[in-house]
């Protein structure tokens, strides 16, 4: 479903992604973790070319994302992306946030899109917040609208860039619950997160990154109980004892 081959990326002199190779199969949930500045957000932002890469190949659902000539609209329409800072459209209600892309990108009728929007907002538990504006919603509710917004495009892949990092602790679970359900339903997901409980529970594999490189890839139980590298051990020790 997602394939990185020898991917390199630089921000100026900074080598943010260094020889990245990874394959994600359909239905897999891959959690990406690592210290800040390790390139984990950049990694998933490259998948829908929010960031371009300089070397290597990224293929998503048989489409070559690294190819400058490819029309990204189709690729992006099939990939849901959830941001750390939600990025809801503040001038639109929750429902309008979820219907704008289906209507304008997929040319769905307003009626059809609203039906879909209501269904997805209900799915994330916000059926009573449909006509609220983002500023009238809590952080956790906003992030769930953002997830519903992604789901309305009927995506093949959902990408999450630290979806709970901007949330108050008591709201983290309502977002993680929605993500757990998605994972159980077989959605292909890549999740950048520090929520190790979530990783343990739903991840097929954990990718550990440091300084732009993938250091370890392992099933969560192996990684958490028996990391193979010193840096992995050090990272786990530092986040588990904080």
């Amino acid at each position, binding site marked *: 479903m997602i394939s990185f081959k020898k991917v390199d990326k630089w921000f100026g002199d900074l080598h943010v992604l260094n020889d990245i190779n990874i394959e994600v199969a359909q239905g897999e949930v891959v959690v990406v973790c690592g210290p800040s500045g390790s390139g984990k957000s950049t990694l998933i932002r490259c998948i*829908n070319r*929010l960031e371009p890469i300089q070397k290597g190949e990224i293929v998503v659902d048989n489409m070559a994302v690294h190819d400058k000539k490819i029309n*990204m*609209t*189709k690729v*992006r*329409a099939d*990939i*849901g*992306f959830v*941001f750390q*800072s939600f*990025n*809801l*459209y*503040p*001038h639109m209600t929750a429902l309008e946030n979820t219907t*704008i*892309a289906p209507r*304008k*990108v997929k040319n769905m009728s307003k009626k059809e899109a609203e039906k879909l929007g209501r269904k997805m907002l209900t799915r994330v538990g916000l059926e009573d917040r449909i006509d*609220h*504006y*983002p*500023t*009238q919603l809590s952080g956790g509710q906003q992030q769930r609208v953002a997830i519903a*917004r*992604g789901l309305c*495009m009927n995506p093949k892949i959902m990408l999450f860039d630290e979806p709970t990092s901007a949330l108050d602790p008591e709201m983290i679970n309502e977002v993680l619950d929605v993500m757990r359900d998605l994972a159980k339903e077989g959605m292909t997901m890549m999740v950048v997160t520090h929520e190790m409980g979530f990783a343990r529970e739903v991840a097929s594999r954990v990718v550990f990154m440091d300084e732009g490189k993938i250091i370890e890839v392992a099933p969560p139980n192996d990684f958490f109980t028996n990391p193979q590298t010193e840096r992995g051990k050090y990272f786990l020790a530092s986040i588990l004892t904080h």
Partner: protein
Amino acid sequence: MLEAFNFRVILEYMPLYGQCFLATLWMSGLALLGAILVGIVACGMRLGQVRSLSVLAGIFIESIRSTPLLVQLYFFYFGLPTLGIMFPEWVTGVIALTLNSGAYYAEIIRSGIQSIDSGQTEAGIASGMNYFQRMRYIILPQALGMTIRPMLGQAIVLVKDSSLLSLISILELTRAGQLLTSDRFMPAEGFLTTAVFYLILYYMLKWFSSWSEKRLIFREAH
């Protein structure tokens, strides 16, 4: 002093003032609509991906903002006919006002667009929207809402600048004052009346902007 002030002559000239008030109103209104349109297009070109269009828009904005409106007006009024381009006077006047304020609107809108968080653009990109869709549905509604006050400021400047049209013998409010002055030699009566009508236009604009502000901007804040 007040005994010297001739109210009767003002009443006598009221039909002229009424006609001129309407002329200023519709010419400024037309120029305002045109200017906002020019501003959106110029700003879109300036911020767009196509380099040649961006440079073109930059030259337009800079050259308008760096030269006096009177010079631009004289260029359109006296200069263009010598190049074989002829318009009625009022068209020349409205075009000059439109292009002049359009350049300022381009800058106002640009500041509005650039104040929108880049996450909004990224969310649009991630959902597959193209540049025009992002502008139309995500960026501009927010940017225009945030720039209502500076836009009102420029609209007031536009209405006041329309007084320069009197210099190319277009019948409008300032011209009415000039006519009263030259007919009866009563400049105090003539230009004070003119000023009062500009004040009325100012309050109309102010009312319109707070009305549209309530409707346009972040509805959730109200």
